[in-house]
Structures are given as structure tokens and as C-alpha cells.
């Protein structure tokens, strides 16, 4: 009796099977189809049912309301907006306010978080205890409470506009916010901006060149005098030739409030401060964990090469720690963005407040508006995740190289 060797299945079929069904084979594939079908059916039922209900009760549905006039005002708008604009415009105003507070919050949270983490790891006893105390205090208090604290206890305690705290007669701090002179672009603005841009690009190229020289031939080129010249000297010369790029419009107390100048509203300040300090406490712990995850031999190796503690951290430890830090850091960024919707408690006009709040109750179209709002938050979160993943991929690549 001869034993026939079993024929391997054709390559194509095996590959297809692996792609579709994984190890479970065709059975698993069928299960997945069934699962997707059930999900699709549930989704369809929800939409169809909602539509039928709305129709039977003659509740207005659809997205036509987006072109109607909003008829209410918003205290902070980054794009020109007035009450006679449409709900679409309101949506954009709210979205930009949410993005503004998120981006600035993320920036400050990251900076404060890194500083606190380094402080906590520092051999300085006092510094490490203060950083530890900060983390324990801030991360254990509810965020809404902290927002209300900054808004009601700190910023509301400032004097009214007529008795505002004045710096050099042009910066004013009051319970209406922080008023600063507003730069107004003049004829010399465009050449000035071009000069700054040229300065930045040239400096970056110069740095790249110097680095290449260092790696290729070991020559150390001092570039900082050129960089200073490009970044400060060039714009200065341009503004001398073409005239001052901006003049400042001074704020003036008129009636109840300041007129002229730019103003940071206290709602924005309270929300940004609360969000960034709160998230920073979590980021500090993530960064600390990341740095501790790098073997201490790396630190010693850096020291034995004659690098300072700061340089070792910057060049050796942190780049390795980043691989551990990035995924939980992304989480914190997403949390901060989503937490910004607590703005509604202190009257900051974010997306939830002006769109899922005022617009919703004026139009009554709850399903559409809540749907859009959820979609937008999802999109913001996915874009943030994608950017962080890309950054992580780049770090991973340079590590393996």
C-alpha cells in the first residue's frame, strides 16, 4: 500500500480563506457575513422607525434647517458671524471654538505634563515632591469642579472693567477678560511676513546642511549667528525699508466695556486653564512611566559619554520612551477634546453649546443635530488618532533604522 502524500490546497484558495475567515475557515466567514447583516438590519430599522415616527407626528425632519437664519449671537467667533447668518455658519463657529480650545489645551497640557514628569523624576527633593503633589491633587478632583473653580472662584473675583488692572495703560485685566492692543496690518505687512517666512525656511535648510556636514565629514559648523541674522535681522531690515508692518489699536473704556483691542473672554481662559492643567496631570504620569521604562543603563551610558543629564534625556532616553508614551498620550488628547464639551457649564460657545444646545432647541431637530455633533467629535478623534499613529510610525521607523 502506498501512501499518497496529501496535496497542498491551491495557493489562491488558501490565501482567500485566510483573508476572509481567518483560522475558523469558511464557517467563520459565514458568521461574519451574518453578523454584519444583523448590524445593518438593526441600523436600518432604527433609521426607518425614526423616520416613520417623525412623519406620523409631523415633526420636521431633514437637513434643510441648516440654511435657515440663526437669529442669535455668539460671544466668541473666529470667523465673521452675526445673527443674520445661517445655522451652517453657527455650526462652523462652534466647531472652530471647540478646535481652538482643544488645540491650545493640548499644547499646554503637553508642555506642562512633560515639565511635571521631569520634575517628578528629578533628583531635587523639593521639585519632585511639588510635582508629585500637583499630580495627586489635580487628577483626583472632578474636571467640571475645576472648570467652575477657575471660572467662578478665580476669574470672577477680578474687578469690573471700570476698575480693571492695567499694565502699561494698554493691557487690561478684568472680569470681562484680558484686553490687549490689536495689531492692524499696514502696507509693510506683506513684505514683513514674506521676510519672516524666508528667514524660517533658510534657517531650517541651514540646520539640515550643518547636520549633514557633521554626519558626513565630522565638521561642526556654528550656525547660530546666521540663524539670528535671518530670523531677526532680515524682518527688521524689511520693515525699515517698507515701513512698520502693523500698528496697534488701543483698547479704550467706553460705556460698559472696552471698545477696540482684542479680548480673551474669561470663559475661554477658564476652560483652557482647567483642561490643560487637568490633562497635564495624566500626561505627566504617562511620560514618567515612559521614561522609567527605558533601562537605566541608557542614562549611565549617556553619562559615560560625557553628556549632561539634560542632553542624555533629550537625545537618548526620551526618543526611546516616546514609543511607550505615544499610545496613552493619544488617549489623553482625545479625552481633552471630548472634555471640552463641558464648556456648556460656563457659557463658552463651543460646538455642544451653540449647535447641540441653542440650535437644537430652536429648531427641535434633535436626531439630525445630535447625529452631526457625534459625527464631528468622531471625526476630530479619528484625525487626532491618525496623526499620532503617523508620528508613532515615523519614530518606530527611525528607531529601527
Amino acid at each position, binding site marked *: 500500500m502506498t501512501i499518497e502524500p496529501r496535496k497542498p490546497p491551491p495557493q489562491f484558495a488558501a490565501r482567500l480563506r485566510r483573508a476572509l475567515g481567518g483560522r475558523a475557515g469558511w464557517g467563520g466567514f459565514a458568521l461574519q457575513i451574518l453578523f454584519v447583516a444583523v448590524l445593518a438590519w438593526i441600523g436600518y430599522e*432604527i*433609521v426607518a*422607525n*425614526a423616520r*416613520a*415616527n*417623525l412623519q*406620523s*407626528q*409631523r*415633526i*420636521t425632519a431633514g437637513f434643510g434647517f441648516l440654511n435657515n437664519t440663526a*437669529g*442669535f*449671537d*455668539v*460671544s466668541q467667533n473666529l470667523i465673521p458671524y452675526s*445673527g*443674520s447668518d445661517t445655522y451652517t455658519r453657527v455650526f462652523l463657529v462652534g466647531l472652530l471654538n471647540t478646535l481652538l480650545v482643544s488645540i491650545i489645551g493640548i499644547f499646554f497640557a503637553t508642555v506642562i505634563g512633560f515639565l511635571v514628569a521631569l520634575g517628578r523624576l528629578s533628583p531635587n527633593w523639593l521639585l519632585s515632591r511639588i510635582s508629585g503633589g500637583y499630580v495627586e491633587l489635580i487628577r483626583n478632583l472632578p474636571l467640571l469642579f475645576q472648570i467652575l473653580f477657575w471660572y*467662578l472662584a478665580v476669574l*470672577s473675583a477680578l474687578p*469690573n472693567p471700570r476698575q480693571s488692572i492695567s499694565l502699561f495703560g494698554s493691557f487690561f485685566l478684568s*472680569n*470681562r477678560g484680558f484686553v490687549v492692543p490689536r495689531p492692524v496690518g499696514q502696507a509693510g505687512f506683506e513684505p514683513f511676513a514674506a521676510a519672516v517666512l524666508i528667514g524660517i525656511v533658510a534657517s531650517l535648510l541651514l540646520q539640515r546642511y550643518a547636520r549633514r556636514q557633521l554626519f558626513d565629514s565630522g565638521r561642526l559648523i556654528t550656525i547660530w549667528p546666521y540663524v539670528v541674522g535671518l530670523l531677526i535681522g532680515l524682518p527688521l531690515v524689511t520693515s525699515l525699508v517698507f515701513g512698520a508692518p502693523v500698528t496697534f489699536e488701543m483698547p479704550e473704556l*467706553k*460705556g*460698559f*466695556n472696552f*471698545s477696540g483691542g482684542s479680548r480673551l473672554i*474669561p*470663559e475661554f481662559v477658564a476652560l483652557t486653564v482647567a483642561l490643560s492643567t487637568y490633562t497635564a496631570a495624566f500626561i505627566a504620569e504617562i511620560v514618567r512611566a515612559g521614561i522609567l521604562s527605558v533601562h537605566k543603563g541608557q542614562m549611565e551610558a549617556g553619562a559615560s559619554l560625557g553628556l549632561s543629564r539634560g542632553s542624555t534625556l533629550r537625545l537618548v532616553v526620551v526618543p526611546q520612551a516616546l514609543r511607550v508614551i505615544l499610545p496613552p498620550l493619544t488617549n489623553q488628547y482625545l479625552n481633552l477634546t471630548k472634555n471640552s*464639551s463641558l464648556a*456648556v*457649564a*460656563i*457659557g463658552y*460657545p463651543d460646538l*455642544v*453649546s*451653540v449647535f*447641540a*444646545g*441653542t440650535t*437644537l*432647541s*430652536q*429648531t*427641535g*431637530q*434633535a*436626531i439630525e443635530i*445630535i447625529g452631526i455633533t457625534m459625527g464631528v467629535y468622531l471625526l476630530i478623534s479619528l484625525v487626532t488618532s491618525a496623526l499620532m499613529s503617523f508620528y508613532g510610525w515615523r519614530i518606530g521607523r527611525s528607531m529601527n533604522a
Partner: protein
Amino acid sequence: MKRASLVFTFALAAGFSTQAATAQTLKTVKDRGMLSCGVSQGLPGFSAPDDKGNWTGLDVDVCRALAAAIFNDATKVKFVPLSAKDRFTALQSGEIDVLSRNTTWTLSRDTSLGANFTGVTYYDGQGFLVKKSLKVNSALELNSASVCVQTGTTTEQNLADYFKGNNMKYEVIAFASADETVKAYESGRCDVFTSDVSQLYAERLKLANPADHAVLPEVISKEPLGPMVRHGDDQWFDIVKWVLFAMVDTEELGVTQKNVDDMAKSDKPELKRAFGTDGNLGEQLGLTKDWVSRIVKAVGNYGESFDRNVGAGSKLGIARGLNQLWNKGGIQYAPPIR
């Protein structure tokens, strides 16, 4: 608040409302043994819990009168406190049977929300509350002021119209709840707090020093406040409408909480019709013959309820004004019970 509107939205989407909306509200309420009534989160005079947790107010009395007419027991009401922006979604989703929450009757709300206004419990208008120390005597002097307002109200739009119409600039700061709005006003974040005049009087009571604040004379809008019910149940719509009419009509007829038993024995034809000793008007509504005396016994007539909650007999002390009966110089007018 955000969570509440999410829950209501899902309830709406998943269609819990179909059964409740189709001409079954009275039966649903009877089966449940409880009326579910949407009210404010605490507006003295209209709907607010007292120190024992009992809800009182003009809007609350409408719900109590409804419960009295249905169950002969004014306590069979579950009050659901709602923020301005959640109120309509709660009604649409069937969470509440009737919305009695100082809500302004406008065309768009009457048509696009899938709900109907049943009448006017209080004729109101929008006004401004300012600190006396600002020495402002007219709303026209408010150029460049910061204004605190509750979000999700007609107030926000009236405000925009008024300042635009008078060519004045202003800064609006909108808060989700009335409490937050008043707190911001009190802390000095705004110069002005704007809302319906009745609400200004009510909120002024909550301030640390009510005498330091004044309501400006300008009334910049018409704000007829009334209860709302869902589309699609005409019987329920009739009941809610006529319970309020009964309160107004009994005041006109001179029926009070005290004399209701004597009046019920009266031979006057209109009283006999109202108290069901002649005809069966109450049963035509789907209620009982003695529905009117049940209502008056429970909450009194419209005038009594007004005085007790917002008028001379209350802390608010608001004059009857427009809300006086039509034959006494006001515009409160109810069709006859016949």
C-alpha cells in the same frame, strides 16, 4: 444635560414614542396611575419644589388640575424637571405627557416640533434686570453691555433682534441652566440679565440683595406661555386645553376653592352645565361629570392659583396686568363650557 438630550434622542430614534402618541395618552396615563408632567428646573412662582420637596407654582397647578380631573387626586403627578433645551425632546419621545414649563408659543414651535400649544397660562414679555448701581434707566442705554441669557430660549433671538434693531452692540454669554445664568450675572460677568419679566422677578428673589437690582421698564417681546402636548391625540389635546379653560371660566363665574360645594348646588344654567348636574360635558371630554369641581377643589380657579403663586399673595407680588380676566381689563379669555 447633554446626557439627558442624548437619552431622549435615542428614545426618539428607537421609536418608544409610537404607542404613546397615537390617541392613547389618556388611557396610558390612567393605566400608569400617574400623570407625567414636564416642568422647569426650579422657577419660583411657576414650577419649583418647596422645602419639603412638593412642587408648587402656576405651571404646576395646571398639571395638578389635570391629575385632579383624571384621578380626582391632585397628587398623582410625577414632575420631570427639564432644562430649556431638553424640554421638547422629552415631549416628543413620550417621556412626559404634557409640558407645562413657561414655554413661549411661537409659530415655528407650534408647527415643526410635532406638538401643539393648548392655551396661554401667562401672558409674559421679555425684559432686562440690571444692577441699580449702574444707573441705567432704559434698555436703550445698554450699548456695549455684556448680557447673560439662558440658552435654548426665544430670549436669545429677541435679544439679537432688539440690539440690532436699535443699532447697539452687545456681548452675549449663554448658559445652559437658569441658575448658572443668574450666578454669572451676580458675579459681575454680565451687566444685564435678560429673560421673561416674570422670571426676572422670580430670579431676583434668589439674589443676595434683591433690592440692589431693578427690572427696566422696556418689554421687548410678546411671550405667551402655555402648556404643550404631542401631535396625534386630539382627545388629550382637548382635555389639557379645557382643564385650563375650566380654571379661567370658574374665576369668571365666581367659583372658588371655598364656595365650590355651594356653587355646585346652584340652579344657574351655566353653573349646572359646568358642574355636570345638567348634561354630560365632562364625559364628552373623556373625563367625569364632576371634572370642574374636582379641578377647583384641588387648585382653585385661575385667579386663586395666580394670586397664590405669582400674584399679590406670593413673594413675587406680580400685578395681574394682562393676565386679568377680559371683563376686568386683561386679556385672559376662555371659551364657554356648554
